[in-house]
């Protein structure tokens, strides 16, 4: 049995190191592309050989790492992580293709993408808390450099804010992990960082206060990363200042780390957190708040990238809402939303990146009538906007409908409020399209505007087609998700939530 996951991480890491030391753009990008395509093959192999009927961990690869403190190296996938691993490995080669002509420090640029890649795959597959934390940090640091070195005018402020905010959150999360570790050690005498073991030990902790504090510590770490309102204020700065590749990495993939942890840790711990009902109420409220608040903020933006950044906050709110509704299919919908949002958001930020490079501005008020000069971009952008606003036929609709439909069974009031956002979401998308792309061409932009390159068209078209494919046929991903969602909810039901 080949250790596919480990190989993927290893290849990405080696690729990252090699790329950093390459001298020319041509070498760097070829290595980056080859690395990411090879790992994509591995990921596709797993996806097609994945047993959707089983909730167990698959493709497990494990060995002892630091036995003295119970650290093991264990990676595996299940229905929660498989779609995200697939998503990540699809996104990376297309990011490389999209930014094919990066000429500022190209070696380091592609190296940072691959390093983040390794970290993220590790986060999604690690079954050991220690390992999880290592990968978690591994994904944050390259992103800091990405913003700091290739970012926009306020890159210094944005990158430091991103690093400190998410780092403080991950330290709080680390405290939570220590809590779990020592709790198990004191109570059962076990020294292990193994995730399934610690999660099952957690239920047995006698102290309710300890349970609550551990729960909250982990929750803070994850919810900042997602982010949910009101812990989102690093996001607009980081998303807007980062280069397009960095924004995509953050929005499409890294925001899923926090959300992923919600399903991996928070939901199994929720029944034992001391006050499950209160936590559900708080989380559902945060989810709906993110949906509505994000939508209204997006409506207010003139910077189109900032608009999509807030839109992203709004869409991630559906993940929280569906997760805490605790109906198997609402949880599934929430997980599907992660996958779907990852695909569509790439298309959005790629489109905006293209606008910025060709016109030099992202302000809607300075654009106008671009569709006449950039018909290919306009076509893909309309597709992306429609997918993002939840038009049926695209994956976003499947996700949002499933979340709303099934969450209503347990959280009716919250769902009815969230429905308001659907109109607002349509409003800011279409209003932006109207002002930026349609109408009379803004002559101030000059006559030099060129349409997107073929490589950009290709990357964006792939995402558009993927969104369409999974909108018409969600089952391949949905089936594996449902199996695990049923298991999670089943465990909670036996715990009496």
């Amino acid at each position, binding site marked *: 049995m080949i250790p596919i996951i480990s190989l993927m991480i290893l290849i990405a890491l080696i690729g990252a190191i090699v790329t950093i030391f390459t001298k020319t753009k041509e070498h760097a990008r070829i290595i980056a592309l080859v690395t990411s395509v090879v790992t994509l093959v591995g990921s596709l192999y797993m996806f097609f050989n994945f047993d959707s009927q089983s909730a167990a961990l698959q493709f497990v690869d494990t060995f002892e790492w630091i036995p003295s403190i119970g650290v093991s190296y264990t990676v595996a996938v299940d229905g929660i992580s498989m779609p995200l691993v697939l998503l990540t490995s699809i996104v990376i080669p297309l990011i490389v293709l999209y930014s094919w002509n990066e000429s500022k420090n190209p070696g380091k640029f592609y190296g940072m993408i691959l390093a983040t890649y390794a970290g993220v795959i590790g986060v999604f597959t690690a079954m050991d808390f220690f390992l999880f934390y290592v990968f978690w940090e591994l994904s944050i640091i390259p992103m800091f450099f990405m913003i700091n070195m290739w970012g926009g005018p306020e890159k210094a402020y944005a990158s430091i804010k991103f690093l400190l905010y998410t780092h403080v959150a991950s330290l709080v999360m680390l405290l939570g992990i220590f809590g779990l570790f020592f709790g198990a050690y*004191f109570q059962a005498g076990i020294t292990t960082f193994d995730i399934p073991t610690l999660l099952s030990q957690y239920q047995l902790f006698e102290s309710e206060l300890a349970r609550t504090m551990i729960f909250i510590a982990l929750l803070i770490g994850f919810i900042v990363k997602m982010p949910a309102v009101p812990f989102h204020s690093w996001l607009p700065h980081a998303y807007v200042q980062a280069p397009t590749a960095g924004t995509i990495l953050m929005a499409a993939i890294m925001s899923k780390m926090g959300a992923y942890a919600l399903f991996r840790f928070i939901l199994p711990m929720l029944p034992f957190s001391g006050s499950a009902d209160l936590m559900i109420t708080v989380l559902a409220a945060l989810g709906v708040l993110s949906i509505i608040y994000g939508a209204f903020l997006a409506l207010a933006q003139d910077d189109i990238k900032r608009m999509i950044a807030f839109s992203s906050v709004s869409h991630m709110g559906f993940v929280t809402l569906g997760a805490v509704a605790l109906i198997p299919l609402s949880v599934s919908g929430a997980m599907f939303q992660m996958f779907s949002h990852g695909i569509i958001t790439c298309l959005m930020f790629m489109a905006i990146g293209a606008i910025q490079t060709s016109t030099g501005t992202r302000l809607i008020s300075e654009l106008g009538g671009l569709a*006449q000069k950039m018909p290919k971009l306009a076509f893909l952008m309309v597709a992306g906007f429609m997918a993002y606003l939840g038009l*049926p036929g695209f994956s976003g609709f*499947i996700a949002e409908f499933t979340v709303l439909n099934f969450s209503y069974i347990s959280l009716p009031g919250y769902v009815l409020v969230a429905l308001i956002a*659907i109109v*607002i979401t349509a409003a800011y998308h279409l209003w932006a399209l109207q002002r930026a792309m*349609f109408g009379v061409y803004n002559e101030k932009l000059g006559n030099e505007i060129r349409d997107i390159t073929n490589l950009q068209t290709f990357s964006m078209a792939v995402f558009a087609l993927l969104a369409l494919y999974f909108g018409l046929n969600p*089952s391949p991903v949905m089936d594996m998700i449902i199996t695990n969602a049923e298991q999670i909810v089943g465990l909670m039901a036996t715990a009496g939530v």
Partner: protein
Amino acid sequence: MNIGDFAFLIPLLPALAFVITLFFGKRLYSGGALIPIGAIGASFIISLLITINILQNPDQVIHQSVHWFAIFNLGILIDPLAAVMLTMVSFVSLLIHIYAIGYMEHDPAKPRYFAETSLFTAAMLGVVLSDNILQMFIFWELVGLCSYLLIGFWYQKPSAAAAAKKAFLTTRVGDVMFLAGIIILFASLFQAFHGEVPEGVYLLQFSEMFNHIDALAAMNATILGMEVSHLTIIALLFFGGAIGKSGQFPLHVWLPDAMEGPTTVSALIHAATMVTAGVYLVARTFPMFLSAPDALIIVAYLGGFTALFAATMGLVMNDIKRVLAYSTVSQLGYMVLGLGMGAVVGLEAIGVSMFHLINHAFFKALLFLCAGSVIHAIGTQDMRQMGGLLKAMPITAGTMLVASLALAGFGIPGTSIGTSGFFSKDAIIETAFVFGEYSHDWIPYIFAILAALLTSIYIFRLFFMTFTGKSRNNAKAHEAPSIMTVPLLILAVFSLVFGALTLKPFIAFMERTFDNNVISLNIEHLATLGNYDLVLEHGPEPLFILWLPVIVAVAGLLISYLLYYKQVIDVSKVVSRENPVYKLLYNRYYQHKIFTELLATRIVYELISLSADYFDRKFIDTIVDGIGKITMSAGNFMRKIQTGVVQNYVAAVVAGVGLLIILFRLIVEVI
């Protein structure tokens, strides 16, 4: 091989035509127009054959279903209701596509046009043949997308881009209600199944919904202290979707603006087909409305009011397409009113309403295409710059006259002589009379009669202003090419004879919709759930009632004739900014100010959105940065205890970790 096995091709062929035309249309004749025409033609033939089959055997409807994802399915249900709708949509769409070859001849973006109208046709056919409400909603939204794209077809025009957005957003408000209805319906059915849905049972299928109406009727919710049946909530939320799509008050505001699109689009989407989707939705889910207390009464009132309200605005518009747009809103009001009459006549309501829907599709498409022919010839939409076109465009004028007579409802009661509109609209008005007779509520009837009078006035005003009198325009008008006039003539024939030929059998056929091998419902039982007293037999109405609609139609013609042909009084004296009634109508009751400027711009954007943004920047972000600053100053202060001696640091770290462990232990053990 059964013809029903090909049913899936009905929406699929136009969808494939969309892809081909979009990507390869540039290299083909007339922007690839022949591909959609062929595809839609094939869809029409299949639909027609299926309809003939079902006509012979209304018990055997076509039902196919496959698993989709989770606990949802995709399926096809073609019963009498769907069959006639499919045939009408594909037929009208076919004719308009042919007409468009001529109309869009000089437009460089033809491939996009034909691709989008083809996608629209696919989506509309999908709405009609869906066997479950989720799939219907999906196609419903796709139809909305196509409408958006086609209204904004000339996206370089700022007004077109704005109108497209307005249409999408306004209907979106309705769509959200529709979606909420689906969600609540699902949750209620889920509850009826006690959370255990057996494998292979799809709750959102129409047949499942209808079979569990009894369980749903038993559920009540309390809203603002009132006990409301779940069925009423669900039905009215569905109706909310219909209000948006079918341009009923107050969500009708997008439809007149939608005239920014090419006229063929207005004819196809905003007159004959898409806007009737709302009516179709209510007809499709009619058993739910029938068992939902009060729902049908609200439907009736809103429809009647819209019919009258829109007609008043149709009186004063100067843009030929806008007159027709308000006319469409008004006629849709009639259809909705007809559905509401189900409170008294039961399933017959679907019959009369659908009958008007089909006939309206013919004559309203014809009206728009005639208008398109005029616009094509003289290049303006303003009726004040038309006039005297009768001689130059005899075919257009003749067919327009036929369509106008049909819209106004000319015919001879008691015989089978009359235009299509006469039979269908009068059927609704007579049903409203029956409603008044049995419930002593005459308001719907009065709305309907008054609207009929106004209809006749505005449509003949349009006719006289456009085709008679002196030319007020320098353009050299010419008759349209035959690729445009042949569809006009075909539609004119249908506007003339379809009603007379089919009235009784059509309504009887519609009444068979909910009695077949898939769905078999006891209508009287459902009506008792909804507290409606059905009148099963209603005899011939008094002679005066039969003649009244014709009388008002003739009166309307006379008024228009005197005002706009003979010009007995100077209309421009009445039509002035000084006249408050005219001002109110001409400004369309200030809806634009209320909806767009006040609600959307002032309240949603400026008041809520911008202040949320201010709050986010100034409050939330300031707190975060503030914490950072406090930490920095604390750090500066603490720097003083940095000794630089490594041992001290190690000691501090050990002490810190030790403290943490002790603290944690204390927590674990003490509590």
